């Protein structure tokens, strides 16, 4: 239950800081196939659907004209079904897959311009990635797997082992340092993957569907683990998933992709409260709205006859949290931000959401 209380608090961070983004992605394209580089430049080809493009040129556009910023300390989730280009997108950010066109600006510099050495340096010190299928080295013990990135940097054995040991403890694997990966369960293997990513103390962590291969209970544990780690180390995270509830649970902001294009980018309550199109609406249909929507989405303007001396709540309080307070009060609750009255929420509005009726917003 710790997660819900954290939601509003985390949600505040990116907007408040208002600083320059860690990563800015501009007009990013990735096209696979012959003469792929001609596709993003051609207005005609850009307009085609994925299928038409395939028939016309034999090319597949995995990522099409994607733009977004990731703020410092934010958990930015990219969500989409399989084939939507999300895994390609995250690989383009560190050039594990070479983008076809566009910019990926990190620290004021376009990563696409970086030469091999600079790119390697970025990967060694600034970025790290957690993979769906772990990608551990079966011939190395857990601690050596965790220290692998440090070893690649050229750090000495004693130092890197000490650092790896710290991270192993951080992810809750103490006691398993000397095991081999195939002796661990899937969840624990992914903890090793997580530890390996954290060991280098990177600025940005990329997660490529890290928990999709795990069973549901373990997945929930690992999601809580990520939330805990995000609190403890406060890293910027870019998280890829196909699971909407995971996206809502972890993400400060969520980018929904379909066929390589961005469909909508916003906070969880924005997606649920104001879906950009039918695709997103269909997607968020089964989400328990009370868990996601905040009072801002359900409040109404005060009308004549409303009693305006009820208790006050902030606009970013989640409906579920506010339910008890609203129902307990015999007058409508005032939604107040910075001393300004935004609207009021009464029993009716709350019940409409909690009872699962459509059309809250």
């Amino acid at each position, binding site marked *: 239950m710790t997660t819900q209380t954290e939601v509003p608090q985390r949600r505040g961070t990116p907007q408040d800081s208002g600083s320059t983004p860690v990563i800015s992605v501009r007009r990013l394209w990735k096209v696979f196939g012959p003469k792929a580089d001609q596709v993003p430049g051609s207005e005609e080809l850009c307009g085609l659907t994925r299928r038409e493009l395939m028939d016309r040129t034999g090319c597949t556009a995995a990522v099409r004209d994607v733009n977004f910023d990731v703020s410092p300390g934010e958990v930015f989730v990219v969500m989409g079904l399989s084939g939507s280009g999300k895994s390609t997108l995250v690989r383009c950010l560190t050039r594990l897959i070479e983008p076809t066109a566009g910019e990926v600006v990190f620290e004021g510099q376009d990563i696409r311009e970086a030469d091999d050495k600079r790119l390697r340096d970025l990967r060694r010190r600034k970025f790290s990635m957690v993979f*769906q299928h772990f*990608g551990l080295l079966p011939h*190395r013990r857990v601690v050596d797997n965790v220290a692998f990135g440090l070893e690649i940097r050229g750090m000495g054995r004693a130092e890197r082992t000490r650092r790896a040991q710290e991270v192993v403890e951080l992810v809750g694997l103490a006691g398993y340092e000397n095991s081999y990966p195939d002796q661990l369960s899937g969840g624990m293997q992914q903890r090793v993957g997580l530890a390996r990513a954290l060991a280098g103390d990177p600025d940005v962590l990329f997660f490529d569907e890290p928990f999709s291969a795990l069973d549901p209970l373990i997945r929930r544990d690992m999601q809580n683990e990520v939330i805990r780690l995000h609190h403890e180390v406060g890293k910027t995270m870019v998280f890829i998933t196909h699971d909407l509830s995971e996206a809502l649970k972890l993400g400060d902001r969520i980018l929904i992709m379909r066929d390589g294009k961005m469909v909508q980018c916003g906070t969880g309550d924005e997606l649920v409260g104001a879906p950009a199109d039918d695709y997103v609406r269909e997607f968020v249909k089964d989400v328990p709205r009370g868990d996601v929507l905040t009072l801002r989405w359900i409040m109404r303007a005060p009308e004549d006859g409303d009693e305006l001396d009820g208790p006050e709540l902030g606009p970013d309080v989640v409906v579920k949290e506010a339910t008890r307070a609203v129902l307990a009060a015999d007058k409508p609750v005032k939604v107040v931000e910075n001393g300004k009255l935004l609207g009021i929420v009464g029993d009716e509005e709350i019940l409409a959401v909690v009872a699962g009726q459509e059309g809250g917003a």
Partner: protein
Amino acid sequence: MTVAIEKPEKTEAAEPAAPAKGARKVSRPVMIGAIFVVWLVLFAVLRGKQTLSLAVADLTDLHRWINDFNDSIGANRNSNPLFLYFFNEIRLVIDNLVTFVQHLISQPSGSRPVPEIGWLGVVGLAGYVSWAAGNWRVALLAVAGFTFFGLQGLWQESMDTLALILCAVFVALLFAIPLGVWAGLSDRFNRIMTPFLDFMQTMPTFVYLAPLTLFFLIGGASATIATVIYAAPPTIRITAHAIRNVSKTTVEAADSLGATRRQSLLKVLLPMSKRTVVMGVNQTIMAALAMVTIAALINAPGLGVNVLQALQSLDVGTAFNAGLAIVVMAIVLDRVTTAASAREENARRSKNRFVKWRRPLLGLGAVVTVVLIYLSHTYLWAADFPGDGTVGSHIASATDTATNWAQDHLSGLTNAFRDAITNGLLNPFQTLLTDSPWWLVGAVLIALAVVLGGWKAGITAAVCVGLLVATGVWSDAMTTLASTIVATVLVMILGIVFGVWMGRSMMVDRMIRPTLDAAQVMPPFVYLVPFLALFGATRFTAIVAAIVYGAPVAMKIIADGIRAVPETTVEAATSAGCNTWQIITKVQLPMSRSALTLATNQGLIYVLSMVVVGGLVGAGALGYDVVAGFSQGELYGKGLAAGLAIVLLGVMFDRITQAAARRAGA
């Protein structure tokens, strides 16, 4: 001699048109039947005409030209720059390596009457290395095996064989592992390498020897080079396969951490493929053993010489004794390398406290080994294997007794069996092949290739037939072809019977498979010995040996094919009321058709290599031509041409059956 069948995916695109065609055309079996009928009719009319037969001592212009060529190479060996700076250099380096190892363990070194390291040192070293690389069980096996060589009175010969194997494997790995890594990393290089590897492995061991003697003379050096060529492909292939199969995510993870190409090769790709590569090394060692023994034909020292001489003088007891030594060496080498590939995995599983003792124990073992080596270097008793090999002579005389008994009491049975097959199957078929006009047989072969494998296979067959005629040993080639086909038919019958049995019953599989695995480890040479005892020096001996050599691989492939038939399909057939026979003939065999074709391919190649080796024990034909070419200068050219003919037969079989397999797979 394993041949990788290319994946049958490509044909799929071309196939959709087939059903329509098939409806118009006559079915394949009918066409094959028609070809045979036409052949038989024409044979009856044209029998004995244009058969291109050539007497044993007769030569064609090509053969004489090769002889002259050989002579001119011999004359210019030390003046031609190509030889002076290339072939002779290679020969010199290899020769020095071989001589060095021989002086170390087998041959008298310098002024010493014994090698640098005597038997005690070698046995100790073998045990120590086996223990360090494998486990204590294989170490005991190695010690026992090596001691057994001494007891057999074959210490020096065994060490000569071992020395050649060590050199050949060392050189082979020196090239094979880097090439394998390269082929694993680069698709383009892999595409270039694959046909070469296929070709190198398709050829019977025998065939490598003749052309090499042309450039490297006879002796240990060319034996080593031939062995390198024959033994390197498995390691190249398996290394490439291992590198390719390293999990993509893991490589990507290393990339994402900023690993350089070198780092990801050294820290990820190589360690993760180590285990598989060691399995490749195992295959290379086994192939080297097979080749080194056969290299006795070109004067390579070692156990092969004993077997060869004994085979030629029909001394079954001696041949058996030496053959047994080869078998023991094969078992020791195979077990030790298999244990080595499994070691790390096992060590990881075992508890850590054991690992703590390993290092000091290894150190202690090293000290003991050094002491043993020192003793064997210094004292004669530890250098020269004591005793005079009485165990060996016991084995030989016991074998002779058994052979005599068998010949006295079983000859009725074995002779009847032999005569039945020879007169009932082999002779008529051989007559059909050798007495038909050459163009008729050629046309039949090409037609069959087209029907079975398509136009491409037909073209290959046409080229091969043309070249076969050009070699001048057409008639001998047809004799060999007859033996090969008869043996292959028998191999396939055995293969289907046992393969189906194994495929249907896990228990039978578990019982039979280890025997088959062991049988495949043996060098082909060794198979001849027991059958020589039973059937005497005839074509039939070679055929039976070939069947025993080729059947295991066919059985295994068919068993795997049968097992790969989906359980649900069998279940559906059972629920439809099929009895066992119907399930086998209507479901399991038709569904494993591509396995059957692959088994035929492998069976043919194995049988061919054995039938040729059978030239040593009276099988005659191409095998005899090759052997005679080694020993008699004036037949050198003919021997080389015969070797070429074997290659052509091999290529033709391989292409036709592979094309047929692709069709069956589609």
